[in-house]
């Protein structure tokens, strides 16, 4: 089968790598047309990836397993990339600043490249283990990853903020087309609010699910604890605005630290710590 899900998904990897490169060229060489091309390529990639995800879902039914493609590390990476591109494109459409793409799409490209090229990652469709057989699977994974994807974009904005902040006053050159610190700060704040809502919903759906599956809504499992740590970091970022001298640069740092914490919740817990969420590492 040529047009299988894996065909579309590996194609997506190359499209996103290309899109990230185009956004970087758009930023560094300030060519407007390349920016437009980057948007078109990214949107096209999203369509192809969506097709791939739907096909994979259909294929799992054909294999007799029948579950949403959200059940192992490969599928979650693909979904993370998909969400990140979606969140970014919505933001680009709303704020009309393509330069943000240079800092947001690389996250999606890296996730896809990791999923496709890492030898440790099993990309076959596997049956669902008993613990994952629940209607909460989709709700839990979608909410969490909407949060993760927003935080990836917020991290990109944080990096942009620090770049811009360093080159204060320089309105030409590659720093020139980065939006003003004030604009970035507001965007970062809005993105963190959005991500925080979804992270909170992700933790709550996880708790409801755990209560049905394990008999306790909170068991201080490393994955749970790390999601709470992440929650604390972003809660700090939301409160920091009300403390004098904390707005701006420190929130940009918190946005980056928060995303490091997200990454540790996502990967670190699976690979370095043991716990109930171990199926995420296969």
């Amino acid at each position, binding site marked *: 089968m040529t047009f299988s899900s894996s065909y579309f998904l590996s194609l997506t990897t190359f499209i996103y790598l290309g899109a990230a490169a185009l956004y970087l060229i758009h930023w560094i060489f300030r060519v407007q047309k390349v920016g437009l091309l980057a948007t078109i390529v990214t949107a096209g990639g999203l369509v192809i990836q969506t097709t791939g995800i739907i096909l994979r879902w259909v294929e799992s039914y054909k294999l007799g397993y029948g579950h949403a493609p959200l059940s192992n590390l490969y599928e979650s990476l693909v979904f993370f990339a998909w969400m990140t591109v979606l969140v970014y494109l919505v933001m680009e459409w709303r704020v009309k600043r393509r330069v943000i793409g240079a800092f947001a799409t690389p996250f999606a490209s890296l996730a896809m490249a990791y999923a496709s090229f890492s030898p440790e990652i099993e990309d076959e469709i596997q049956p669902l283990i008993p613990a994952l057989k629940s209607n909460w699977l989709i709700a839990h994974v979608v909410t969490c990853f909407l949060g993760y994807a927003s935080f990836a974009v917020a991290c990109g904005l944080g990096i942009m903020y620090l770049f811009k902040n360093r080159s204060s006053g320089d309105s030409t050159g590659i720093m020139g087309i980065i939006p003003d610190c004030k604009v970035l700060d507001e965007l970062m704040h809005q993105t963190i609010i959005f991500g925080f809502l979804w992270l909170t919903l992700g933790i709550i759906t996880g708790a409801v699910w755990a209560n049905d599956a394990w*008999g306790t809504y909170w068991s*201080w499992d490393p994955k749970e604890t790390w999601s709470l740590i992440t929650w604390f970091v972003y809660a700090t970022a939301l409160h920091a605005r009300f403390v004098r001298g904390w707005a701006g640069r420190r929130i940009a740092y918190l946005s980056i630290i928060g995303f490091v914490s997200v990454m540790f919740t996502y990967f670190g817990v699976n690979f370095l710590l043991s716990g109930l969420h171990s199926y995420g590492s296969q």
Partner: protein
Amino acid sequence: MKASSSIYQDNPIWRFFSSVRLAVFLLITLAVTSIAGTLIPQRESLQFYLETYGPNFFRIIKFLHLYDTYHSWWYLTLLGLFSTNLIVCTLKRLPFTLRLFRKDNLSMDSGRLLRMPFKKDWEVKEELDNDSIRSIISAFKDVVGKFHERPDTADGGRLFLEERGKWSYWGIYCLHGSILIIFLGALVGLFMGFKGSVMLPEGETIDHIVNKQTGEQIPLGFSVRCDRFDISFYDNGAPKEYRSDLTVLNGNKEVVRKSIVVNDPLKYRGITFYQASYRAIPEVTVRVAESESTQRLLTISAFQKTLWPEAQLTFGLIQYLPSVHGRPAAQIWIGDREGREGSLWLLKGNKKEFKKGENSYGISLVNARQRYLTGLQIKKDPGVWIVWLGCAFLIIGFTVVFWVPHRRVWLWIGRREGKTIVILSGQTSKNKLQFEKDIREIEKALDSRLGAR
């Protein structure tokens, strides 16, 4: 109001607990210290920590309760400080919110309206007749919908106010209160609930469980029988489903039957039974005979002794092999009342003889199978609904705090030095971009009535 708040402000403890700075400090501290419990395995035996980390680090672990970080004295203290901080901040804010909420936004004058963040004014050279004024008001009404009116303001004008989302100031209390509600739910679960687990063999019944924390026996008030346990696999060998058929008994009456699987527990009278694990133990059936007249079928399970009452012999299962030359085999232990014991191997289909004292007996393996024990997690937590309520408040509060604005749009029409003045102004607590668009829309509608002049 002033007097009471200054009394509070003089109190250094109150000042300490009412600062957002403390909230930020506590959030960071909680984030950093929570890491400890994810790096060090939790709730192992003290021996484990001594062997893994050595005596020096062990002392730190023991002092800081790092073997159970999230229930340690210092972590609970942090959570206590966090709650206090939340409550004090709430109380400090309350009078301010009440003032905002009670504020009459119709007591305004043209001067203050012109200092609002969004404003636009028109000066009309002649005095407008009633019809023109009515048309301006209806243009305003067409855009904003419902509005309040004050026909005679202090500076002699007519004031119209469209106000929405005034209640949104309470969102922050809903959001912060939800955290306290979740804590309350957790405490209710801790003091009024229990948790335990049991390995229940097929066919057997329990009517009490052992509390995991305290070790005390808790009667269920009813009993639960495991009728059957079943495990199924996918073609690739991965487990597909663990299923226990449970029956709830009240006295001897069967009340409820349910097959539980992972993610679908049995709930009865506030107590929940979860499919958690299983164990398979071998079980063999042997035919023993003393003479032709006395023979009997005996079922022997692993880890259990079986008595043959007629001959006063006891049997046990030492080893079980599912396939020896394609047939099941078992090593059986046999003991008698005098304490003499011995063992022998049985292969299905072959008969063996053994002697105890003067008597000799025949024995053969009739059947062998796996007997299952289902591992159930049993829990009662009356606080869980309080936690869900808190979660709902958390989401509702968060949405209100960040996305429901308090919006006010004023329209003032009055006269000054023979001219008619029309002022449009507005204020919003959030989402200024959208508000600006809305204001521009009203402005355009008014322009079409006023601009023609």
